[in-house]
């Protein structure tokens, strides 16, 4: 029993302060939310009803845009039918929000020539590297589909030395000649010089990935009435050449036009995997249904305001905590010091977990979250109060301190568990059911409730039980536990008194 207590106490101290040391050594610290470090956040809502797939596609597009901006820890997530973009620490907030909020448009551009991937790389020696082998064929029943891609022979890059820059987003205008990349897995796998846009995604009615026995995964698409005519013209004009499907400044696929498609339906074949086919179908469908995102809320916080809020929160928290501890020590004496130690274990675990989650999961500590933590100090201290008041009850009933510490813990712990469970349940529900800052708040409140239970059991219990067995602590004049616990006269607490001790 006694040994178990020591082990528990040592273990939690090692875990708490060891991990705190490790966190400090690794240079990790809680990630600050944008209201504490400055930044921009926008909630975007589609103007019309869209499917989840389309929404996810939009998120991917926004993510690409944000990555291009070079924001350190962007957080782009979907909540309900809204997209929430958080850009902490972003410098040029207005521009960032403008770029994020742009509507993406699917464009079909003729491929003029492939361009070497990067100017630093040596240009390809030959022109045989024709990117993803995709083919369009006419006619919905694709029985007569030509096999495979026809390796096209396109002239080598126009500029010698390959000093061709990829067109920036601002310059990616429909009526301009542009150079755009094709990206796979975050890497540029090809670049193309493309002519002005000939058609937008509005021409498409639908697109679906399907499996064909002879050709594997392919995409069947259909066109709108106007779209069919334009697409017919386009495919007639560029028969035997390549056109590129471009979405948001990225070439999604370069297609060889094998024959004119005038029927309003067509097919894209190639060596697609199922995923690739699905993605491409989605891109085309997405283009068919342009998602216009309207900013629902826009919030920018200047770095200095964020710093002020952080400072105010920290100072208010420290002052509040100091007052609580002072009160505890005055009221419970030595046991008040237990609260002090317990809270430092709690705080150190909190710091470690928040830092860890910030590092690995991008969890950001917002102002609401910080308030949640400050508030939960109250709930945490309450656990000590419940226990110590229980202890007073027992001692008043004539038990010795030694006998009481253990018994009252098991009883008080039930109360603590019940109460903390309900508090945790509340926090969890808030987290699942709400949006925005309420979630951050609920997360930290729930986390601190859990930590409270852990600290109560593994730290407070063994420490108080051991203190209760130590004469120095129970009898000391000023810090004596007995005094703090209102035992009948300091000192007598160490021996059992009263008739009720069984």
């Amino acid at each position, binding site marked *: 029993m006694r040994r178990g207590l020591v082990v528990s106490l040592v273990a939690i101290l090692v875990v708490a302060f060891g991990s705190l040391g490790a966190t400090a050594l690794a240079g990790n610290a809680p990630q600050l939310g944008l209201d504490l470090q400055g930044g921009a956040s926008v909630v975007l809502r589609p103007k019309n009803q869209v499917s989840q797939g389309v929404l996810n596609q939009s998120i991917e597009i926004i993510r690409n845009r944000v990555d291009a901006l070079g924001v350190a820890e962007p957080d782009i997530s979907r909540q309900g039918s809204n997209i929430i973009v958080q850009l902490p620490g972003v410098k040029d907030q207005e521009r960032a929000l403008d770029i994020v909020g742009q509507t993406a448009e699917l464009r079909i551009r003729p491929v003029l020539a492939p361009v070497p991937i990067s100017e630093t790389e040596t240009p390809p020696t030959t022109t045989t590297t024709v990117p993803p082998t995709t083919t369009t064929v006419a006619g919905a029943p694709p029985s007569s589909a030509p096999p495979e891609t026809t390796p096209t022979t396109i002239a080598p890059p126009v500029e010698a030395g390959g000093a061709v820059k990829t067109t920036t987003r601002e310059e990616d205008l429909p009526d301009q000649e542009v150079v755009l990349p094709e990206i796979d897995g975050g890497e540029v796998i090809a670049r193309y010089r493309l002519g002005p846009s000939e058609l937008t995604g509005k021409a498409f009615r639908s697109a679906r990935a399907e499996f064909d026995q002879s050709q594997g995964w392919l995409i069947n698409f259909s066109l709108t009435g106007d779209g069919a005519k334009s697409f017919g013209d386009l495919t007639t004009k560029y028969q035997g050449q390549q056109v590129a499907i471009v979405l948001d400044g990225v070439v999604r696929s370069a297609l060889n036009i094998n024959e004119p498609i005038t029927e309003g339906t067509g097919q894209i074949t190639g060596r697609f995997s199922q995923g690739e086919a699905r993605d491409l179908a989605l891109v085309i469908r997405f283009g068919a249904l342009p998602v216009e995102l309207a900013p629902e809320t826009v919030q920018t916080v200047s770095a200095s305001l964020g710093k002020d809020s952080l400072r105010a929160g920290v100072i208010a928290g420290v002052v509040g905590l100091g007052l609580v501890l002072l009160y505890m020590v005055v009221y419970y004496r030595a046991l008040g010091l237990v609260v002090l130690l317990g809270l430092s274990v709690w705080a150190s675990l909190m710091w470690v977990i928040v830092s860890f989650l910030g590092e690995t999961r991008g969890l950001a500590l917002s102002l609401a979250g910080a308030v949640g933590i400050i508030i939960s100090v109250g709930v945490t201290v309450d656990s000590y109060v419940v226990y110590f008041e229980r202890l007073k009850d027992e001692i008043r009933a004539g038990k010795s301190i030694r006998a009481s510490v253990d018994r009252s813990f098991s*009883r008080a712990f039930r109360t603590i568990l019940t109460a903390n469970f309900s508090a945790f*349940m509340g926090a969890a529900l808030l987290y699942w059911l709400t949006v925005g800052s309420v979630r951050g708040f609920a997360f930290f409140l729930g986390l601190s409730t859990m930590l409270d239970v852990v600290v109560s059991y593994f730290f407070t219990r063994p420490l108080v039980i051991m203190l209760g067995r130590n004469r120095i602590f129970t009898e000391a004049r000023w810090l004596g536990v007995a005094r703090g616990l209102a035992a009948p006269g300091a000192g007598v607490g160490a021996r059992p008194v009263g008739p009720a001790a069984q």
Partner: protein
Amino acid sequence: MSAEKRSIWQRLYNGETSFDFLSRRRLWLCLSAGVILVGMASLGLRGLNFGIDFRGGAAWEVEAPGVSVGDARDALTPLGLDDAKIQILGGDTLRVQADPEDRSRRDEVSATLAELAGAPVGQVSVNDVGPSWGDEITEKARNALVVFLVAITLYITLRFEWKMALATLAALVHDILVTVGVYSLSGFEVTPATVIAGLTILGYSIYDGIVVFDKIDENTKGLAASGRLTYGGMVNLSLNQVLMRTLNTSVTALLPILSLLIVGGQILGAVTLQDFALALLVGLAASAYSSIFIASPLLALLKEREPRYATIKQRIQAKGTSGPLTPAAAAAGGFGATGPAGGGEPNRGTTATKTTPPARPTANRPPPRPRKKGKRR
């Protein structure tokens, strides 16, 4: 231990109080009903002062030392923001709040304010909210609240019993109505921070209630089973037993909140902190009150209708008035915390507690409630 000489604080500290929380329960309930009624009347007449996160609109904030409200108004009038609300916060932070129609001029206003403050545009913080955003968060918060109440009711029903769940629910509704009423009466702005704080208060309120009910639950198996106390008397005893804990918890919860309100909000000028703290303060007061004066009396009211407790009450009343028992006396008598259930130790009560007559009509004694397995050690 002569209690007469002790101050109320010493009595509190030593668990020798015997406040009668229940005898005036009609008064407490009427008091609350009155406060709620006034609040609801105000809600109907004036409604709530919703912040821009609910109504839609835009707010700008920039550090502008030496710029007065008048300067800001002069600069903004050409932009058509005549109705904008302009404040100076925490000394030198200029805050401008405008209606949803002015959202389109967001960037212009930012530029104007930056010029006024002599700072780059990046130093202007903007919060721009569309008109339907508020509906969405309101709806979400309402759903969360309903699910939360249902879940808590279920949990308390399972953990204790449905009457306690009902009493808790009543206390929660009381807290919500009082807080809303105070916000309507005072015209404090309702922001998302307020909503968060309100939801926290519910957590506190339940937490408080559960600590009291846990004690009642425990006492039910000890004292009440002996037939010496009415259920109401037992609830009263339990309240006195946890009184010090309630006070301590309220103090420890209040200190950080006051610190947020005064240090964070007033001295350092962080508006959000102030929003949080204000709602917390109002709600905390309501919940501390309701756990003692609403939930517990209501529980006693409900329970004393049960035949078992009704007979005890009748019998005790027939013998004369039963004064409230002090926790210390109950503990000395071997009740409460862990003592044996039926110990006949004479009461060392500090008030004129009517102690049990030695000859108890054991025949009339109701059978003790069956104990649940593993409930006590």
